[in-house]
């Protein structure tokens, strides 16, 4: 029996191509069927603009908070050796696989008007649900794993000898973190932040439970879809698609850049004559 070596890789390509087609087809057809003439008018809808602003602001605030707390957490999980580190790392992954609605429910129980944390705020007139704060709370919950995991693996990949050398050069651990670890891990962390930001921006499930109002873009999209129909939601969908494309593109570019730097480093393991 003759099996050409090419035949094998060709059938693999075919299988992969099928999935790729499946992924690309909806986007392509969407762009094809969209009535481009109506797009500007529909995007001028003040509610839509308000929703976009809410989304951008909340996602940005959420990612700033995640960056301030999540990067140190990633560092600790990557570098410090303590009991229960494995369990902690597992917990970090969990929000990633929760159904977002479940996340929303869990958050609502705690931060809602009758929750142990939400109640005091509510009685002071600061509602943590159905508010801008509620949006940010749900976005932090679903988006932080991206950042923590990115930071964790970036810090883990750094040769501990760098820190040891820095210590013998008289640098304290705080200075080493700022001047060695953080800059070396920078690109991977920024990529993680971008992905987290996009995740926050597109967050729907948890947000719709925690804070139906004020509308974020995905929630408003859903409102339009269930109220007016598909045609009304299409221009908003276009907007989110565009933002996603730019964001993912940037994230991939950064990851590629840092991988290439690492590759260049590795090539020199057996270096040539000086």
């Amino acid at each position: 029996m003759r099996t050409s070596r090419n035949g094998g890789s060709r059938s693999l390509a075919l299988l992969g191509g099928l999935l790729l087609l499946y992924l690309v087809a909806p986007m392509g057809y969407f762009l094809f069927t969209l009535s481009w003439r109506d797009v500007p008018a529909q995007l001028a809808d003040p509610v839509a603009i308000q929703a976009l602003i809410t989304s951008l602001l909340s996602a940005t605030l959420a990612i700033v908070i995640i960056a301030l707390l999540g990067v140190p957490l990633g560092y600790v999980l990557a570098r410090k050796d303590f009991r229960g580190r494995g369990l902690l790392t597992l917990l970090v992954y969990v929000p990633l696989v929760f159904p977002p609605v479940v996340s929303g429910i869990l958050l609502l129980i705690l931060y809602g008007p009758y929750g142990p944390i939400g109640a005091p705020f509510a009685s002071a007139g600061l509602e943590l649900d159905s508010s801008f704060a509620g949006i940010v709370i749900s976005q932090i919950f679903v988006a932080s794993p991206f950042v923590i995991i990115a930071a964790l693996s970036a810090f883990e990949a750094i040769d501990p000898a760098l820190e040891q050398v820095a210590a013998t050069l008289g640098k304290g651990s705080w200075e080493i973190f700022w001047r060695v670890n953080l800059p070396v891990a920078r690109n991977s962390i920024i990529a993680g932040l971008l992905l987290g930001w996009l995740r926050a921006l597109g967050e729907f499930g948890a947000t719709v439970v925690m804070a139906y109002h004020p509308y974020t873009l995905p929630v408003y999209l859903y409102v339009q879809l269930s109220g007016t129909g598909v045609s009304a939601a299409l221009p908003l969908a276009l907007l989110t698609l565009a933002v996603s494309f730019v964001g993912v593109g940037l994230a991939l570019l950064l990851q590629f850049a840092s991988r290439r730097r690492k590759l260049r480093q590795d090539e020199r393991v057996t270096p040539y004559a000086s």
Partner: protein
Amino acid sequence: MLRDTRATQNNGMLAVQLEQRLGNFHLNVDFQVPLGLIVLFGYSGAGKSLTLQSLAGLLRPARGQITVDGQVLYDSQAAIDVPPQERRIGYVPQRYALFPHLTVEQNVRFALPATPFWSRVKGKSAAHAERVAELLDALELQDLAKRYPGNLSGGQQQRVALARALAAEPRLLLLDEPFNALDASVRERLRDALKSFQRRFTIPIVLVTHDHVEVQQLADTVIVMQRGRVEQIGSVQQVFFTPRSAAVAQLVGHRNIFGGCIASTRTTARDASTIHEKTEEPGQAIRLNWLQITNTQAQVVAPQSNEVNGCWLPLPFSASSASSTQSVARVPVPETYVSGCMLASEMLLHRLPDGEQPPTWTARGAALWIVELREANIQGASMRLLVRPLWNGPLRSPASQNVPEGLLEVYLSFSQWRAIQVEPGERLLLEIGPQAIHLFEELPPGGKIQA
């Protein structure tokens, strides 16, 4: 603060005494050597790198004391543990660990104290810049100042790492296998460069390596480590010419290592005055030991010392065969003979015609070993011999897979032998140089020398 009494006496010395248990591995190191180019030498897993890291303060030993040039850096009893930041010990790890996000210049600059942006005094920055430029200049890195480590060759990376370590003005420099990451073709040259670097900056160095060529080329003092312990301390000559154990002999690259026993020993100080001599070179007195052959026995005596024992080696002479005018022959043997390592200054290999007894010896034939040659393979100028010793002392050969019982395998490189008499088909008389053959009493019975 408590000061150890050792501290004040230890100027110019590196005194280390460490104990640390890591899983199954037990590090127990104790040495005190003059600062200079100190080489920690041993197989990987001997505990060299751990010792180095303890010196730098990156690893805290369970017990012990570290003193560099009179300054106590660690003392478990006095509860002194100077943090790595304040030890002023430069550390260059195996792959140099340059900061990949900084240029060559910035890497070196990193070692200087940071000037925070709110207090950037012009003068201070300028002083720093000058110091960096000086170091780049000294290590011929000016042209690479703006390059990133990823774009440098191994040799260049090494120079950057050295410049960076020097910038912090260390009192001691630690180099962990500095030539490991380099091509063999570059190593030789960079070893020379390191030696001149050390002379130029007059900085004490502790270097870790498993390469005996590096030791020969660089070391002022060698510390041989094995399985977490110090096996031998000494100069290059001492370690190479008088390895204290079979393991050290193997480590330094000797090939003909045999287990054997000295038939009897006795102090022979009384002979000292008569046989002490000087070498022919004027102004350089070297103590000589003599291999003295009387009728049936060879005697090695060590003059000038009551502590060193002479050795009696039975030789297969019959009284009649040695009864010529040369009944007592003297053959010089290096001093190193007595200190544990058995060297044949001259070795006679004799190929016997079938059924013949060992022949009578000429004066030339004074020898430590008399062997029967069974097989000789001469490849180029090197030789592999299979020999059978012609005396009754027990003699073992290590790890002898392909060697028949009772025979010894001997490798001789081109510089270790010369033929002094060749009679085709009958006799091959070889003179074998010192350092060619090593005999140890304590060779493990299994024959395998452990790494």
